């Protein structure tokens, strides 16, 4: 373990750690552009100069490319190093258009920060600047090449890290250009990370440009709710609108990056058509009126038809809190059925994962990255867990063998960022004594025996889930006897449903009475329900989600619910006719327009109370109570040991 001294502070680091990282470990940030912890060292920008006063090397050195060694005495504040950094910044800024006021990166720009920090604040250069033609890169990313400082982060991410081939670096010397062969949409499903990784404003998020500055945003740690990987994000909101979503580091789950679905698929959160008001028989009503009506309707239905012909149906869109309370709600109406899944196959798969996975055999990001042999089994990786494709690529680049087991007719639809051998069955995959093997199975239909067989092999397992929080659905289905709605319905056992964020296909509820429906989007059940209760989405609520590997993660409310200020309906401006531009309502009111939504679990708690159950203030009880204080900024905790041998959820 090399021991060195940085600015008079003794530091001890692991072998191979760079001086820049060693300094960082004691809280000293050496200005840098090309260095990025997730990427290989390029030493391209020359900004990270330090001076070595004593030891094996001496003089000015690039700290990002210099491994820490015993006996080094490093100064980050030596006048020579400072001067060097100042001059480097000045030269990197020579061609920069100085257009921060019209740049969407302004305020969250590493170039701004380190230019000022580096001591370059006045332009001396009076000559002509190099200028470039920008390219059209699709509907999500805007290109502004004049702001480039040639750090090569973008191309190292796009090609080396993410395996893309349609974006790169052309030219040489002063003509170095980062773009495509021809204009056109970037092909990589990870292209959005260019926005985060470029230290300047060359790539900005076209879907949220020029709406607000960094200091205007409201944001909080959140967890992507598009698939069961559960990557960490930070939605940036302004005036009740989710403007951008950026990646948030979690070394156990997603590293630094997120996929494009997480970043750009956000329109539904801001949709002005989202149901915002409680409804009773087609007319809007107060929220509590609707809850009373729902409780009454449930009571009436049970009295007429018996509790066993009523199903409480949720989905993997619910938070863990919502799922737990759904079970308690079903229990309050003694004998009612509980469904977290509509499809029987999905229930079998998720319940099998909940049953078979444990602390030891459940593979997570690092297991995949370090695997020697990986089998992709009945899986469309780019659809079901895009970010894991990058983990598999990492293993592949380190020499792992990758197999696509063709046991199921699900094709690898999109181009995968690694090469693989197709085999017919899992038996053909040569897991050497199970050493560092990982099987990644999709959420599609699989028979239970096969899953057992998978779990009994030596390899670690990933069982991707059919939805963001489906693992919790599987665990709770086991705990509370959850059933698949489609099976109950087709067996004619169900006469009525109460839906919570459930996506029931129209065909399944033709002959079923929808007693009440709570959701943040509309669907067949909402259209049929006499009582409708609008709920909040994951950006507007606190909650917990359990990802494919059994890791519970807390997401925090990132903004208040309500209609986005932009494009607000004229009725909120005291006028029913005038199309009013973007100005806050002129009518005095205390509530947020369209802000009546409540968290699904709170709605359930209120129903439980109305139906004669206890008052519930904390949804995480019994064996789940250990998750109460889960820190949203932590790496999350795996629930297996947590749940073992503990008393069940009390109710």
């Amino acid at each position: 373990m090399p021991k060195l001294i940085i600015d008079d502070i003794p530091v001890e680091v692991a072998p191979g750690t760079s001086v820049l990282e060693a300094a960082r470990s004691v809280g000293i940030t050496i200005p840098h552009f090309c260095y990025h912890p997730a990427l290989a060292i390029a030493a391209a920008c020359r900004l990270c100069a330090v001076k070595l006063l004593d030891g094996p090397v001496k003089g000015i050195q690039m700290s990002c490319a210099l491994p820490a060694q015993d006996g080094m005495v490093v100064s980050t504040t030596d006048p020579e190093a400072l001067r060097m950094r100042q001059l480097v910044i000045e030269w990197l800024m020579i061609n920069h258009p100085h257009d921060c006021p019209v740049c969407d990166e302004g305020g969250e720009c590493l170039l701004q920060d380190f230019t000022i920090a580096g001591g370059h604040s006045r332009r001396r250069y009076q000559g002509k600047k190099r200028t470039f033609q920008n390219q059209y890169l699709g509907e999500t990313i805007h290109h502004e090449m004049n702001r480039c400082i040639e750090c090569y982060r973008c191309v190292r991410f796009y090609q080396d890290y993410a395996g893309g081939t349609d974006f790169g670096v052309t030219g040489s010397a002063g003509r170095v250009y980062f773009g495509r062969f021809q204009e056109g949409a970037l092909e990589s499903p990870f292209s959005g990370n260019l926005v985060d990784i470029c230290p300047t404003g060359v790539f900005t998020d076209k879907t949220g440009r020029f709406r607000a500055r960094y200091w205007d945003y409201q944001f909080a740690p959140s967890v992507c709710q598009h698939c069961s990987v559960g990557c960490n994000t930070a939605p940036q909101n302004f005036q009740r609108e989710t403007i951008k979503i950026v990646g948030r580091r979690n070394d156990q789950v997603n590293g630094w990056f997120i996929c494009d679905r997480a970043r750009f698929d956000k329109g539904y959160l801001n949709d002005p058509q989202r149901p915002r008001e409680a409804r009773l028989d087609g007319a809007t009503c107060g929220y509590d009126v609707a809850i009373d009506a729902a409780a009454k309707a449930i009571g009436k239905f049970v009295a007429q038809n018996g509790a066993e012909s009523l199903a409480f149906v949720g989905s993997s869109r619910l938070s863990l809190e919502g799922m737990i309370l759904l079970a308690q709600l079903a229990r309050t109406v003694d004998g009612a059925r509980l469904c977290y899944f509509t499809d029987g196959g999905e229930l079998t798969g998720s319940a099998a994962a909940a049953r078979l996975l444990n602390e030891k055999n459940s593979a997570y990001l690092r297991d995949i990255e370090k695997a020697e042999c990986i089998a992709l089994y009945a899986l469309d990786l780019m659809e079901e867990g895009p970010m894991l494709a990058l983990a598999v690529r990492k293993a592949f680049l380190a020499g792992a063998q990758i197999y696509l087991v063709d046991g199921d007719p699900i094709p690898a639809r999109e181009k995968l960022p690694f090469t693989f051998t197709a085999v017919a069955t899992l038996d053909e995959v040569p897991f050497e004594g199970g050493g560092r093997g990982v099987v990644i199975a999709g959420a599609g239909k699989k028979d239970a025996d096969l899953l057992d067989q998978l779990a009994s092999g030596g390899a670690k397992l990933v069982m991707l889930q059919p939805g963001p929080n489906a693992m919790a659905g599987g665990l709770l289905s086991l705990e509370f006897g959850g059933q698949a709605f489609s099976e109950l319905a087709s067996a004619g056992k169900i006469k009525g449903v109460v839906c919570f964020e459930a996506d029931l296909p129209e065909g399944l509820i033709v002959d079923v009475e929808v007693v009440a429906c709570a959701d943040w989007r509309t669907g067949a059940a909402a259209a049929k329900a006499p009582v409708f209760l609008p709920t909040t989405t994951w950006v507007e609520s606190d909650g917990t989600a359990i990802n494919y590997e059994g890791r519970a993660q807390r997401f925090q409310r990132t903004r208040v619910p309500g209609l986005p200020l932009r494009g607000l309906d004229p009725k909120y401006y005291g006028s029913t006719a005038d199309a009013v531009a973007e100005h806050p309502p002129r009518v005095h009111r205390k509530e947020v327009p369209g802000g009546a939504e409540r968290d699904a679990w709170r709605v359930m708690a209120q129903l439980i109370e109305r139906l004669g159950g206890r008052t519930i203030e904390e949804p995480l009880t019994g064996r789940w109570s250990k998750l109460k204080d889960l820190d949203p900024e932590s790496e999350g905790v795996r629930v297996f040991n947590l749940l073992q041998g503990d008393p069940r959820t009390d109710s």
Partner: protein
Amino acid sequence: MIPETLKKALEARVASAITAREAAVDVMKELQAHYGWLTDEAVEEAASLLGLSPLQVEELATFYEMIYRRPVGKKVIHVCDSISCWCVDCDGIIEHLKEKLGVALGGTTADGMFTLLPCCCMGMCGDGPAMSVGGIPYGKLTPELVDEILEMERQKI
């Protein structure tokens, strides 16, 4: 479209390389010889021969100064402007070339004969100022010698 024989030859060249990228420069040069410059079509053809994307070929093509991504004259003049040649007044030679040919750096003569490009050190520092015309190196240049060379190269066609 390249002729089948050229395609076969290039495929063989790629097959004999340890990694396809290693054969990229040869492939680009052959295609350039065929088309006169490396056309967009040629970039795509090189890409499919090498198993790379067109962008990845473009990355290499635009890095090397002897791969031409724009139409050039029959013979390309590369005149060195690096340090050793600069010490022996390559600037004067470059001015002379510009005047004589009636083009700026990067330009092609009206008759389509010559394209004038500056280049990095060609390893002829001891014989500077240096240039190459159509691939043939010339050193110890003087304005008079340049005139002679241009005349000779014109005749050689």
